[in-house]
């Protein structure tokens, strides 16, 4: 067998149900999927993880706390010695929830904060959401949960990151993950949120400068996979070695379907855990072929001919698929954007959908 890596990290969508209807939601979350896993099925799935050498599971959604089985599933994973975390919008976090998290071994949480109050509520489409989220974050920190703040970076907040840094610090977060908007799901048509070239570069420079000045102070800024690659803006500790999806990480949807990454479109589903177990899907010879066996010749569009192709692999596949529909060609590569003439960078709101007009598909030379 040629492929001998394992899904060390699993993103597990516990439910697609959500108590928010955020404008940028890549999953278009709201209602639960029609046939989501039962608790019994979920626990049986956990039993499959040890032999696949799974080291960490992250609960996502939807809003994962809306799956009433989360404490049982978390406790099961704790018993299997698998580290578990959760990504939440923070609305459901009461002191009792924090207590149950501690009891079930769920010791880390990522909470979504998308800006100061007005911006957050505008993106989350719910007045008062910010206040509830901040209260939730404070309860998590007070309860001893390792707190990460996750910000979906959009055109509405990219200019407010300095201001947000102080907020994140005041919450007691250990990490601040900055995730550029994926133009997919509900975010695809909401052009007001889309990032232009200059916005991407502004984000990259913010990350670099803040990290350089912060030293070992918290929060540590964690650039998402779609912030890169192979440029002077890369952080040494987060060097890009290619997308891990389908190689050492995998996404499990709440109805048991399996993708390399939960941010990928549904046509990338590689299997169904109601029909096959995860081992069978993971080691099927043809599975995740685009990710496991490719060469520099497989790079597309803006990545075609790039001399970093074999090192980078075309960037974040979620961003590549969301913006181009193809693998191996994330057009929002800093290295590439920095070579685009400033006049083109300055195109107001050169959004994802306008990329071809703006010249983003031009090969790097």
């Amino acid at each position, binding site marked *: *067998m040629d492929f*001998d*890596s*394992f899904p*060390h990290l699993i993103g597990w969508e516990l439910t697609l149900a959500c108590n928010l209807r955020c404008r940028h939601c890549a999953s278009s979350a709201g209602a639960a999927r029609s046939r989501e896993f039962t608790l019994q099925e979920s626990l049986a799935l956990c*039993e499959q993880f*040890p*032999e696949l*050498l799974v080291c960490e599971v992250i609960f996502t959604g939807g809003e994962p706390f809306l799956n009433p089985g989360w404490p049982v599933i978390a406790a099961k994973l704790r*018993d*299997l*010695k698998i580290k578990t975390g959760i990504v939440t919008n923070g609305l459901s976090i009461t002191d009792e929830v924090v207590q149950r998290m501690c009891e079930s071994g769920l010791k880390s949480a990522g909470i979504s904060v998308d800006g100061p109050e007005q911006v957050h509520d505008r993106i989350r489409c719910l007045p008062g959401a910010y206040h509830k989220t901040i209260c939730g974050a404070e309860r998590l920190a007070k309860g001893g949960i390792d707190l990460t703040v996750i910000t979906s970076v959009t055109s509405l907040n990219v200019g407010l990151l300095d201001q947000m840094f102080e907020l994140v610090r005041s919450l007691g977060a250990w990490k601040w993950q900055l995730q550029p908007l994926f133009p997919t799901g509900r975010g695809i048509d909401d052009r007001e949120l889309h990032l232009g070239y200059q916005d991407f570069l502004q984000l990259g420079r913010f990350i670099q400068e803040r990290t350089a000045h912060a030293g070992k102070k918290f929060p540590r800024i964690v650039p998402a996979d779609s912030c890169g690659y192979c440029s002077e803006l890369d952080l040494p500790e987060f060097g890009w*070695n*290619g997308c*891990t999806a389908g*190689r*050492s990480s995998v996404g499990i949807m709440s109805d048991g379907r399996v993708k390399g990454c939960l941010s990928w479109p549904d046509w990338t589903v590689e299997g169904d855990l109601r029909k096959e177990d995860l*081992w069978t899907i993971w*080691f099927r010879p043809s599975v995740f072929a685009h990710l496991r066996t490719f060469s520099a010749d497989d790079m597309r569009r803006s990545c075609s001919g790039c001399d970093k192709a074999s*090192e980078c*692999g075309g960037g974040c596949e979620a961003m590549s698929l969301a913006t181009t529909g193809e693998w191996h060609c994330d057009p929002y590569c800093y290295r590439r954007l920095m070579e685009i003439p400033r006049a083109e960078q300055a195109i107001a709101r050169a959004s994802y959908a306008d990329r071809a007009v703006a010249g983003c598909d031009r090969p790097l030379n």
Partner: protein
Amino acid sequence: MNKYLIERYKLAIDTTPWWWRVAYLIIPDWDRFDKGLLEGFDRIQKGHDKAFNNLVETHLSAYLEKGTMPPMAISGAIMNIAEDVVAGRVPTLRAGDYIALQTFKRSAK
């Protein structure tokens, strides 16, 4: 009790470019367990690798003690472990061998 145990949490992981890749799993020998490295032992006994450990032990013992060749699908894996045992090294299990053994175990279900 198993004589040869797989401590799956002590992974040696190769971080060469492209992706994290398991290179070896360390198999602690019996003496080390007798000396009190019981945390891993508990994990295994309470965990889900019992059948796997039994499989390895059965074929490894048969090969080392009686010269019985393992089934073709796992012969390479078992002989690699046996080589380590005979040479007095801490036995290690290559990721590919681990996959072959697990696949064999699963096919026997």
